[in-house]
């Protein structure tokens, strides 16, 4: 998968930082609610990024990332609730915690491949909400009732409101994590990770410590998703076992595939899609019912299913992959023409 052009990345980033400042000028367009929505997209993007590191770049499938998300969210929530820790200090602890859980889980996962790994991770996703309700942990986790938190305060007397601050907070975290991921992938370790994905045996014979790389990748991936979970605990200001059911894992997977497997930019697109598609499916379903006057009750969930299938039809490689091939096929006739012109010139001279 191609890397995203650097120039565009910088422009997008500058825009992302500037947009909230336009709020006084365009209060309806840049509303607090929209900023909050974008914050949830960013959080989703980080989670998908974590999954992508594991599945997209290391070739290990996971249906269990909702578990790491939950561990991250609960770690942050418990630290804030029981120890009155400031919200920003919980991020590194949640990351370390999830890294350990992910690493340990990666050990038995070494023996499993494909569908079996899918089952093992699936089991993880199912177990975590149950463990959160476990009798002896109830004092810590709040059991089925969960933990109610406060939203992050704006520090240093910055002239921002809560939602603007949350947005910047999430954005900075994402940029850092994105940058770190890009660097990892570009390094010797990153190439080893991808070599394991593409040619496991070759990588093994070439002396890459496949077991170590696979488990560490599991840990890093879990840490990324755990950070997203910790951010979400701050953003939503509430954690409960119901928020972390198996379907969350499925949503991450959808974000991953729709965005683009094995593409960092795809993770961001996937995160945005994952939040957007829910809302748009509902809007579409109301539109069909009220404006097109369809008698049959087409629910948002049906529309959601149809969107997924249609997307996979149009872009089986995900949105980023699809756009890339589209751009390339649009460019290639031009490139051919230029090539031919150059050949002619050479012949005439």
């Amino acid at each position: 998968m191609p890397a995203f052009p650097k120039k565009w990345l910088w422009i997008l980033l500058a825009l992302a930082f500037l947009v909230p400042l336009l709020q006084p000028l365009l209060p309806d367009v840049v509303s607090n609610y929209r900023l909050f929505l974008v914050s949830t997209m960013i959080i989703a993007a980080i989670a998908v990024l974590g999954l992508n590191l594991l599945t997209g770049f290391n070739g290990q499938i996971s249906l269990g990332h909702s578990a790491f998300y939950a561990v991250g969210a609960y770690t942050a929530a418990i630290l804030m609730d029981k120890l009155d820790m400031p919200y920003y200090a919980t991020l590194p602890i949640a990351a370390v915690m999830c890294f350990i859980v992910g690493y340990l889980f990666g050990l038995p996962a070494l023996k499993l491949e494909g569908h079996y790994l899918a089952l093992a991770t699936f089991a993880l996703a199912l177990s975590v909400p149950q463990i959160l309700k476990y009798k002896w942990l109830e004092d810590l986790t709040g059991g089925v009732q969960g933990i109610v938190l406060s939203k992050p305060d704006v520090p240093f007397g910055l002239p921002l409101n809560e939602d603007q601050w949350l947005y910047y907070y999430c954005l900075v975290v994402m940029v850092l994590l994105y940058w770190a991921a890009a660097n990892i992938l570009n390094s010797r370790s990153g190439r080893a990770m991808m070599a394991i994905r593409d040619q496991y045996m070759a990588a093994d014979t070439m002396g890459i410590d496949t077991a170590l790389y696979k488990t560490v990748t599991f840990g890093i991936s879990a840490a990324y998703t755990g950070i997203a979970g910790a951010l979400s605990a701050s953003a939503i200001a509430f954690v409960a076992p119901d928020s972390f059911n198996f379907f969350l894992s499925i949503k991450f997977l959808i974000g991953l595939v729709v965005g683009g497997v094995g593409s960092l930019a795809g993770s961001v697109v996937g995160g945005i899609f994952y939040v957007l598609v829910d809302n748009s499916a509902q809007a579409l379903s109301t539109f069909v019912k009220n404006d097109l006057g369809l008698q049959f009750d087409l629910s948002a969930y049906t529309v959601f299913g149809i969107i997924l299938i249609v997307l996979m039809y149009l872009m089986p490689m995900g949105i980023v992959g699809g756009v890339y091939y589209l751009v390339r096929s649009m460019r290639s006739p031009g490139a051919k023409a230029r090539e031919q012109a150059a050949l002619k010139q050479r012949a005439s001279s």
Partner: protein
Amino acid sequence: MKTNRRTFVGGLSAAVMLSGSRAAFAQKKYDDGATDNEIKIGHTNPYSGPASSYGVIGKAIEAYWKSVNDRGGVNGRRINFITLDDGYNPAKTVECVRQLVEQDKVLCTFNTLGTPTNTAIHKYMNQKKVPMLFVATGASKWGNPKEFPWTMGYQPDYHTEAVIYAKHILANIKDAQIGVLMQNDDYGKDYWEGFKEGLGKEAGRIVKHVTYEVTDPTVDSQVIQLKDSGANVFFNVSIPKFAAQSMRKAANINWKPAIYLNNVSGQVTTTMKPAGFENVQGVITAAWLKDPTDHQWDGDAEMKTWREWMAKYNPNGNLGDVNYVYAYSVSFLMEQTLKKCGDNLTRENLMRQAANHQKLRVPGLLPGITVSTSPTDFYPVQAVQLQRFKGESWDLFGDVMHAESS
């Protein structure tokens, strides 16, 4: 002529009230979401995901407002009802409700469904001072006007209901040994806490307490464990599917305890019939709504009106689904509350009117049960009546119990 002091005072206060209300009527006051022609109300509900069986409540409420609008609206204003799908996921509820409050600018939210989902928005709504009326959950924390003056519940809470069962067991069953089956979430937990509180010193009578997860295919294993404990009372805190399964299984393995069933599963067609009528004779539950599948209400005037409304506005709706009665009743209460606001459609006045119902008769509630609220009482429906299953329908017995919630 001698003026009686008392009538004079009475007359004066009546005059003051009249002038006050006239002033309110003369001067139209609006907050976000209310205009001369329209009132915007927000709502969240699980239309997808594991709790999607509650989706009909949202659809029925939508249909109710359509019928109100066809009648000319409330005090001449159309109701614009915006309902969003939160999939029973608290994180998603926050997103939906923020959209409703900040983007769509609704006057209030109404009957948002679920305990964890409402917990997630509880603080937010009270910070924003947006009324969060008649939430659709039986947890006991929604009637706390001191800390959360913008939130009000609706139905009798699970906690109180469980206390009633506990008291009934202690009073009527000699040497009770109790087994409890409970759904492992906040709904089950509320019943469980209430039940233990109701038993008080006798809590040791609970000989076995088992739980199930909503994703479990069956609860057979749990019922076997309960039987093995030697319990002679079965307190059944489960949703219809598992309530029916557990009572059928109990009969199949020849366990014949006295069964107390939670109100959540008290419908004839969705629980009692699937469990097999022969297996559920004598089961006791508490009720506050009329069960549409119970033939004793076939000739009832309110239920006839309800059926006509169903035929017109929910032609595809299942007439056996008590959720439609629930939605009808709670929407009726909302309509009355809005009517009382007159032209003063501020959020503050809406809360004041919601907390000012006196013995209001709401269709769908059992005879003798009415809605009363006050600035210190944020529990609209608080009464239940016990009923026993006999033949193919419920048999109400005893008095309507007005339980004061904690």
